């Protein structure tokens, strides 16, 4: 008998994951463990039908909200190497937190989540990993903007929506970013290389309206289309410290030709990593500890090692079309 399980992933501020991540992939895909193994969370319907909440907030009417969300969905639909489609059905008074078979996006006031801008939850078929329903709430305790140029005093709704819809697709968080700890607690983002980085660039920032190579590779790996599988390649290697594998290292691949960065993690005790969705060519590989956000905002693993120095691989790695590189090791030193 098929059971439905409900999970949630908070976004843009650290919060605990209740879902697994798939260890085989570079960028994190949400997954669920079933009796038959680990299944990536994916939509299997050709067109995801969604509803917009009819509730507005100061500065954002319900119709403005719907337009911004539709644009955010269109951003993901426009990825040429991924096949995913969405359809706006209509407005609803249903809450974005109800398990009702409807995929609803809307504002909701969650004062207890004072550092969470938005969150995505799922109803899953825990046998197949199919997403049955996914709701997104945008925390109404914050002030929101739909200004085309952004509003320096408010959070940009479309940017946060693009991030949350990435979760709706089944993507986890990217660690492609740099932060510093605030004296008053929490972290301040210095820079981000992916929309799926878990911490917001802040009020007024609209950069996350545009997908980055890491986001595109992640979505394309889940919903491949347009020759993605045949025309892109992967890197396969291990991160080693004192001769043993490093668990949880963040591994970044930068194209020598274009500068595009796609990243992943070593998610096995052996230190093995695999980064997929790379345009064929040569890559600089850089390894760093996972220390720019709470580890739990990426995955719920124990034994993650962050006590090593960032390092480059001494060899350029080559991603072939439709395959993976020769396996190589990157050795790091303790801090």
């Amino acid at each position, binding site marked *: 008998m098929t059971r439905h399980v409900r999970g949630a992933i908070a976004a843009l501020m650290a919060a605990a994951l209740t879902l697994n991540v798939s260890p085989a992939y570079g960028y994190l895909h949400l997954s669920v463990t079933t009796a038959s193994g680990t299944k990536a969370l994916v939509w299997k319907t050709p067109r995801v039908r969604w509803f917009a909440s009819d509730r507005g907030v100061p500065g954002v009417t319900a119709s403005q909200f719907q337009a911004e969300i539709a644009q955010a969905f269109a951003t993901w639909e426009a990825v040429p190497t991924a096949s995913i489609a969405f359809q706006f059905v209509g407005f609803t008074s249903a809450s974005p937190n109800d398990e009702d078979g409807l995929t609803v996006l809307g504002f909701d006031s969650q004062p207890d989540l004072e550092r969470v801008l938005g969150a995505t939850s799922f109803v899953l078929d825990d046998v197949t990993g199919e997403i049955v329903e996914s709701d997104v709430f945008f925390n109404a305790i914050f002030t929101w903007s739909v200004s085309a140029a952004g509003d320096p005093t408010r959070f940009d709704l479309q940017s946060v929506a693009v991030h949350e819809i990435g979760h709706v697709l089944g993507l986890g968080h990217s660690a*492609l*970013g*740099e932060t510093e700890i605030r004296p008053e607690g929490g972290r301040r*983002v*210095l*820079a*981000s*290389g992916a929309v799926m980085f878990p911490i917001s*660039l*802040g009020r*007024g*920032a609209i*950069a996350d309206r545009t997908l*980055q190579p890491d986001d595109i590779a992640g979505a394309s790996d889940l919903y491949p289309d347009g020759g993605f599988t045949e025309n892109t*390649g992967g890197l396969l290697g291990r991160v080693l410290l004192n001769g043993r594998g490093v668990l949880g290292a963040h591994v*970044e691949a*930068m*194209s*020598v*030709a*274009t*500068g595009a*960065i796609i990243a992943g993690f070593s998610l096995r005790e052996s230190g093995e990593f695999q980064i997929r969705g790379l345009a*064929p*060519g*040569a890559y*600089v*590989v*850089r390894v*760093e500890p996972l220390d720019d956000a709470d580890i739990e905002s990426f995955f719920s693993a124990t034994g993650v090692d962050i006590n090593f*120095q*960032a*390092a*480059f*691989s*001494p*060899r*350029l790695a*080559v*991603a*072939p*079309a439709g*395959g993976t*590189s*020769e396996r190589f090791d990157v050795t790091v030193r303790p801090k």
Partner: protein
Amino acid sequence: MSAIARRIPVISLLLVIAPALAAAQTASLLHRIEVAGGVGVLMGAALGSQNADLRTATTGQPYRLFSSSTRMSAAPIVDVRLGFPLGGRYAVEAHTAYGHPEIRTALSSDAEHAPDLTAIERLDQYVFDGGLVVSLDRWSVAGVHPFVTGGGGYVRQLHEGLVVIEDGRVFFAGGGVKHTIHTRPRGFIRGIGARADARLNWLSGGIHIDENVRRHVSVSGSLFVVF
């Protein structure tokens, strides 16, 4: 006095005969196919710089994770030429060369203080080109015949593991000298000699970072056989 007077005509005679022999040699090699094989060096060139930039909240000011600068190193080459005379001073030549250069990417300025390092990959590079050769016989000296050449062709680069191929174009201009060591008036092989080539190659496409065309100097020395 008289001895000196006798030598002058002899030397003069040799000077007169030598150009005649050279002309005879050149004439005997006309309308013959020439095959040459040799070794040389393809000099390196900068391929460009690339920064690992992340986005910041302030537009126009990226956060630099690290910097990289890439160049192709100099490498030995082996090359083969096949020449077809067109008559007069002109010939066309097909040429192929193989080299095994390194791609060297210098990594620096890491935001988290990763030690600077040069990451390396080896390429297999093949050049297939053709061009026009113009002999400059009026500047020949002591049997050494200069020539100039120019043309274009195709570059094929295979990354390490030979699984990724990059294509490009090459245009070149250069010149060199030939010296015929031995000739025969008849027979399958009509002559052998040596030649030296120097070329300035403009490579576009292939492995590159900036869009600009790279310039590589190549020099080679070959032995040739005339059939």
